[in-house]
């Protein structure tokens, strides 16, 4: 239905464009006109399309809410005596009936009646939508095309619409951030209604499985997120331990030593690592690295668990090597040549120059690069989902298995989602913490890097 209406609006807009263009072209004969014919056409097309589209979108979004509340209000008083869950079930049954799905009959006497009301209201709404949207579109066509005159500034109108469009497009970034924060906060509040905040932040036991049988109390689910955070940090720590030195060493080599030909070949190869999807790293970790680490550990007499934090951390480290090396490379090349020359002129060797002049000068930038890398590691999902553990385990031993924030989000949301169950909602509480953790790291890192750049500009 909506698709046809969309096509109709487009058709009206298109004809509006040609009508406007032709009328304006007719004006051109003999007279100088203010705007080119195509801008007259474009203006009419926009008038025909945009308001109607906006209305259509609004209608589609609001329709279910409005109709549902109308149907609900029409229900007899006994409906309002039902408990929350039963009421939801009843509404679902009504909606199923209206779509012709006949499932288990709960025997609600008023269900049939409500369903037919729902059907007729849906139909009514559809007709009303078609009428309203087409009237808006067509009347816009009539009004707009009457304004096609030689001195009408059509270009200016189109320009204004364009300005609004580009402003809104850039505002999407802000809207996205706002939407992220609001949606995470909203679902987290629902979570914290059921699980106290202090238990979540300071509890040491994480076991989100909620009672399967009725006689198990809901209290069996434990939502102490400390082991989840500690696991995240442990894996991120291992990753930085791997990526930090290797990334930094490669950056120094590329920035200061490598001859251009080696650099041109080796650098893109290293950056290849950054373009590989994380799910590939996850497979690599689970299939190759984890067994390797385990065997290596066993041969040394160490007890290494199959999904050890070490294996996941190493692979995550490999993933962020190019991240650190290219950021650090930028930072090192940004150190002004005059400082290098100053040091060489004192008779310093190249390595002395790097160690005593370039590193201290580039330190803020390098710290920024590391912070960004840590934020990357904390937010990384697929590697840990495939290679780290599922059970929360409060330990600092990288040979054991630990779980992470992102793994727990995936576990909570794959499978049945019930938005009144703390297990599902816990994903949003974890997401909220994750978002703010990475946000703070990013803002801090970008600030340091920016200040560092300004220092040498």
């Amino acid at each position, binding site marked *: 239905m909506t698709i046809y209406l969309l096509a109709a609006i487009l058709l009206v807009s298109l004809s509006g464009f040609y009508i406007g263009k032709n009328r304006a072209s007719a004006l051109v004969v003999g007279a100088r006109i203010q705007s080119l014919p195509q801008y007259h056409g474009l203006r009419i097309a926009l008038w025909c399309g945009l308001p109607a589209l906006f209305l259509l979108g609004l209608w589609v979004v609001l329709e279910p809410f409005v109709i549902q509340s109308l149907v609900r209000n029409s229900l007899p008083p006994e409906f309002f005596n039902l408990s929350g869950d039963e009421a939801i079930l009843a509404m679902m049954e009504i909606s199923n009936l209206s779509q012709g799905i006949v499932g288990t009959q709960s025997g609600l006497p008023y269900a049939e009646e409500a369903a037919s009301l729902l059907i007729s209201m849906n139909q009514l709404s559809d007709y009303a939508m078609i009428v309203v949207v087409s009237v808006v579109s067509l009347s816009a066509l009539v009004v707009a095309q009457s304004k096609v005159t030689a001195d009408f500034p059509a270009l200016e109108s189109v320009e204004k619409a364009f300005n609004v469009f580009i402003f809104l497009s850039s505002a999407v970034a802000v809207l996205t951030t706002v939407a992220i924060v609001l949606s995470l906060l909203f679902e987290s509040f629902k979570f914290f209604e059921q699980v106290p905040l202090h238990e979540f932040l300071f509890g040491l036991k994480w076991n989100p499985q909620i009672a399967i049988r009725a006689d198990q109390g809901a209290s069996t689910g434990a939502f102490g997120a400390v082991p989840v955070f500690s696991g995240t940090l442990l894996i991120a720590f291992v990753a930085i331990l791997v990526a930090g*030195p*290797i990334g930094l060493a490669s950056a120094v080599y590329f920035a200061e030593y490598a001859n251009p030909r080696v650099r041109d070949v080796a650098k893109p190869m290293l950056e290849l690592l950054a373009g590989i999807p*994380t799910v590939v790293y996850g497979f690599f970790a689970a299939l190759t690295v984890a067994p390797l680490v385990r065997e290596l550990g066993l041969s040394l007499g160490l007890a290494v668990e199959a999904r050890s934090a070490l294996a996941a951390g190493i692979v995550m480290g490999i993933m962020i090597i190019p991240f650190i090396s290219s950021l650090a490379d930028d930072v090192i090349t940004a150190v002004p040549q005059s400082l290098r020359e100053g040091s060489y002129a004192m008779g310093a060797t190249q390595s002395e120059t790097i160690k005593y002049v370039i590193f201290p000068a580039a330190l803020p930038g390098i710290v920024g690069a590391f912070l960004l890398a840590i934020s990357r590691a904390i937010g990384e999902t697929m590697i840990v989902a495939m290679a780290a553990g599922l059970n929360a385990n409060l330990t600092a031993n990288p040979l054991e298995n630990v779980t992470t924030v992102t793994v727990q989000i995936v576990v909570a949301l794959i499978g049945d989602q019930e938005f009144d169950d703390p297990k599902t909602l816990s994903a949003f509480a974890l997401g909220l913490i994750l978002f703010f953790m990475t946000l703070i790291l990013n803002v801090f890192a970008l600030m340091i890097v920016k200040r560092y750049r300004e220092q040498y500009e």
Partner: protein
Amino acid sequence: MNRGFSRTTGGKPLSSLNIRRQRAERRFRRIGLFGVGLALASVLFLLGTIFSSGYSAFWRLHFAVDIDFDPVLMNVSSDPSLEELRDVNYLALFRKNLERSYPEVKGRSERRKLAQMFSESVPDILESLVISNPSLVGSKQRIWVLSSSSAEMIYKGAAPRDIEETRRVLTDQQLTWLDQWQGENLTRTRFNFRFFTSGPSRSPELAGLGGAIVGSALTLLVTLLISFPMGVAAAIYLEEYAPKNRVSEIIEVNINNLAAVPSIIFGLLGLAVLLNVFGLPRGTPLVGGMVLSLMTLPTIIIASRAALKAVPPSIRDGALAMGASPMQTIFHHVLPLAMPGILTGTIIGLAQALGETAPLLMIGMFAFVADTPSGILDQASSLPVQIYLWAESSERGYVELTAAAIMIILVFLVFMNLLAVFLRKKFERRW
């Protein structure tokens, strides 16, 4: 790069301090080289692992079976109608033929073991053969059919052979059959076309990437249609129009931060807003594409801004001086010149989106979808999600499929990146 120490060493004895310093110099240089070497070794190790465990999935093992399309066995008349042929129990036909070809195999479990050497798809193959050519009825044919995944794993050496029977994927008896058929030339390998056309399956030997590739393509199409116009528009606003004020500053900071928000958070956003509030259909390319376009936007905006910035102001001044409006200046002069850079950024953004898994999992693109999606409102899978699902499957046959799927996605990514490099090289312009 040599920064002035090419002629450092020589035959003349140096002071001990200088010898020590030169040694430190060499050591330091070696550390750098070692870092690069280690990083490159990881790349090679990773790619090597993927290739060595994945290339075999492009070939499938087939066994020859002699099938007697005996009307009696098929329980049809000697000149059957299509109707009749559709009702035949082809599994029974296959089993009975096996019994005829291998009369020495006695007992139910033995026979089942023999049938398990072949793919579950054999009855379907027989059916389609007969339906497309009813004249087969009454004839005897040697037909090549897919082997089961277990037999194939042993054949390819992907599953260990020399271990005790209970831990092996084939029994001793099945192993002898395999060897026997190999000796009698009843085995052959053929290119695995099914891998590129069919959807996922419970049996590894039948599973393919077709549905996932279509799902990914549809998702990327939605991403492109949303993020390209919006990204370019935002870049134009920020680069050409935005006044230097707080609002612009907030937008800029936001874009930079969005670029670094973990992808899984975008998935949560999609779940909470697009699915729960707006009620869009779960697990569809439409929702997946919308979520991915939010992630791709910052990349496109940042690249487009750089491309716009590189267009010299003199060109704008020239156009404006001719009486062009700001919008005309941008569309006629600035955008065409910036387009190569913008397209390069867009392709790189889409390449990132192609590899994203976590947000798609959040919005439900993980269901087992056997059909190839035909539109953006159908439930669909996608390449990285399929890789994840296969990687999580315990059956051994999925390991090579996972690795092969990774090879396919890497080929797509390499292709996209080469296209980006080509665009940049071809249209690069220095002012």
